[in-house]
């Protein structure tokens, strides 16, 4: 039955994408613009949405040739605002959902009207004169502008909203600009139903959100998990793992923060390069596990690869940084905390599982070789696939800007290498000859 259903769904989707749009089709895409401004005891929410998204639900007054009868349209616009917007919008003050607002004003506007590019002009437009009755305009080619007014306790309250406008189009985006007292402005871009969004998050809300994000990110990333597995296979005790995991954490934090602050090459080939290097890092680690019984100085190579993985983390984080509010650094560090918690969980599972495996199923050395070989096999495939993507980008030509950027990165690499060298001297001095552990006999 399922086998029959999927081709049907696929066919329906293809027809939807290629058929001429009729009056009652759901639009392919729609953008809803919102301004949210608390002022005194009132929270003003200005919304603009395309009326093409309402044709399924709405009837409207028409005059000759199906032009909208603008003299009679206001009640219908209020209905549209109620049905299409208010039914899908919840606004919260200090965690308490606010009652349905007053619809202070509605307007039908031309889609080319530029008023909604800032709050003041949007407000003036919505409260200003409507289009003249003589204007010739089709419903589907107009936009609905609405001013909602919510009674609030204080403009200093903590506001959040849940805008589930995803039914307005197959691909719907809501842009929200929150204008907090004191001139602070936050811009958000929400795809479809993005759930509850804190408009000006406190540091602990931002931190909480990013810890969860980091935790999920490490658990969702198979390549990061396999890299971790390779790191721990030969060292299944806490003490030798501490410098390795610390090196990985410090390194990926450096590049994650660097790329968030735009210290990253702004070129198309950089993300595929990093993805390829991540695959190489896994392959290298797996190979080292096979060739070397007890790799020494693993923390150094782990640090280098950690730098690469940090860039990888940042690619997944870019779209979410808008939820950090004014707590960018806190959010980044929280993301790292989430990543560490995820890593710890993975280690807590990997280490005992490997110990059990090597005790009861197969000898340790053979087990390390077999597991590493499987991981190396997968990493090799990733490496080849990702390199093929990378190769599609032409090699960069040498320009003054490119050379300057390369020199900057080279300087950073020299500083990093110097720090690593100093750290390794310090570790040697600290552990002295005592750190020479007796190699395990296999």
């Amino acid at each position, binding site marked *: 039955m399922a086998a029959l259903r999927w081709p049907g769904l696929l066919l329906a989707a293809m027809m939807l994408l*290629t058929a001429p749009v009729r009056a009652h089709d759901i639009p392919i895409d729609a953008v809803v613009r919102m301004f949210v401004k608390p002022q005194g005891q009132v929270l003003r929410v200005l919304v603009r949405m395309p009326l093409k998204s309402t044709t399924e639900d709405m009837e409207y007054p028409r005059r000759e040739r199906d032009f909208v009868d603008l003299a009679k349209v206001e009640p219908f616009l209020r209905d549209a605002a109620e049905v299409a917007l208010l039914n899908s919008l919840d606004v919260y003050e200090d965690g308490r959902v606010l009652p349905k607002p007053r619809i202070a004003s509605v307007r039908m506007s031309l889609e080319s009207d530029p008023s909604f590019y800032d709050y003041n002009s949007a407000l003036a437009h919505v409260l200003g004169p409507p289009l003249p009755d003589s204007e010739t305009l089709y419903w589907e080619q107009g936009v609905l502008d609405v001013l909602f007014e919510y009674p609030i306790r204080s403009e200093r309250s903590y506001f959040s909203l849940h805008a589930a406008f995803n039914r307005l189009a197959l691909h719907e985006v809501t842009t929200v600009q929150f204008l907090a007292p004191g001139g602070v402005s936050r811009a958000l871009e929400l795809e479809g139903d993005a759930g509850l969004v804190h408009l000006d998050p406190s540091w602990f809300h931002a931190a909480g959100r990013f810890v969860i994000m980091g935790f999920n990110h490490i658990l969702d990333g198979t390549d990061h998990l396999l890299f971790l597995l390779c790191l721990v296979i030969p060292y299944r005790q806490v003490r030798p793992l501490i410098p390795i995991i610390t090196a990985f954490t410090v390194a990926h934090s450096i590049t994650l923060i660097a790329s968030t602050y735009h210290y990253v090459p702004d070129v198309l080939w950089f993300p595929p390069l990093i993805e390829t290097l991540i695959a190489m890092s896994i392959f290298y680690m797996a190979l080292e596990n096979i060739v070397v019984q007890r790799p020494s100085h693993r923390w150094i190579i782990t640090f280098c690869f950690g730098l690469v993985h940090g860039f990888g983390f940042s690619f997944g984080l870019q779209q979410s940084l808008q939820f950090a509010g004014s707590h960018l650094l806190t959010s980044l560090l929280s993301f790292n905390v989430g990543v560490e918690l995820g890593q710890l969980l993975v280690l807590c599972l990997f280490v005992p599982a490997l110990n059990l495996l090597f005790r009861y199923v197969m000898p340790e050395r053979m087990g390390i070789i077999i597991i590493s070989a499987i991981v190396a096999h997968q990493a090799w495939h990733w490496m080849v696939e990702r390199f093929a993507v990378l190769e599609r980008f032409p090699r960069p030509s040498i320009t003054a800007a490119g050379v300057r950027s390369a020199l900057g990165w080279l300087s950073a690499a020299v500083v990093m290498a110097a720090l690593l060298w100093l750290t390794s001297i310090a570790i040697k001095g600290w552990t002295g000859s005592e750190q020479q552990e007796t190699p395990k006999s296999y």
Partner: protein
Amino acid sequence: MKDLIRSRNFLIGAGFVLSLAALVACQTMLDHGSAAQAQSQQAPRYVVDPLWPKPLPNHWVLGMTIGVAVDADDHIWIIHRGAPTLSVHEKQIDNNAGDCCTAAPPVLEFDQAGNLLRHWGGPGPGYEWPDSNHGIFIDYKGNVWIGGNGGPDSEILKFTKDGKFLLQVGKKGARRVAGAAAGSGEGAAAGFAGGSNDLLNFGRAAKIFVDPKENEAYIADGYLNKRVAVLDADTGKMKRYWGAYGHKPDDTPMPPYDPSQPPAQQFRSPVHCADMSVDRLIYACDRANDRLQVFTPDGVFVKEAYYHTNTKENGSVWDIAFSKDPEQKYIFMADGVNDKVRIIDRQSLKELTNFGDGGRQPGEFHAVHSIAIDHEGNLYTTETYEGKRVQRFLLKGMAPVTKMDQGVPWPVSN
């Protein structure tokens, strides 16, 4: 001390310090060079987006792609000439000779991701579809305007975005004059003569622009006529028109363009664009005269500039788009003979640089015919003759102008 100097660690540490010092010194030197370069001329930099748009469904292919426009949602609309401009090998489905391909509908809408959205067009009840589609424009109410430059095309059409017919201005065949010579150039056909002082009909209109402030449509009219005509955008009633330098247009046949001769006092067909800037100046493409003329909305001549004046026959000034900064500092000009997009300083009308080259790969052109710009400043071009495609060029910020001919804007580096 000697022990210290000789020590391995000291040497490694000194190596790090010296390397770093050398790198910083090189960087500083380059920075000084860049600062000097930054003082020089800057212009917007573009790279081709080879992945836009996505492939068309239904084995559809484009014919001569003869117009492009961007609407308020940043959707890209194109018009093309369909089956009559496809070779027999491109429309095997029509001839029951194979599985590939057939012409797409004339009007196509794409989103920013390159997906095909609406598609419609062609003859229908209540209006006369042009023999040869030419130019597309989306006005401030979201209506779609279309011109035509086929032999009998003397009309322009207005539709809703869904393809519902709204308005026809001019009657097809109105320029028919028994025994009239064919003339020369694209769309030339015997039996038709220019009528640049006709208040009701056009002469193979090339492009339309609608001024939202006055609700007036400016018509680049055209391949047979030699004027810019201005209409009420709702009723289609003609309000005024003018020729080159603001003169009364004259349809007397002109000799072929010769750059060594004094400037022609009339437009030399086709008048290929008539677009308004933010400061309400009308820029008219006098294509075969290789010049751009600037007017007030009432047709008073302001200034002109010539581009690549050795370009004969089809001319160098095909279409323009204004940059998206508030002052519209730049004009992007399609030149379909030399296969370039010229970047022009709007105030001085001086060409700063250009990109593109002849060819069929992404970023190259074959007869780049029309150009439009979205709100992000990305450019869209369409190509006629055998070019038959639409391309997108992504804005990559400002860059110093190091040479006039940038060549193919391939996305090689930052």
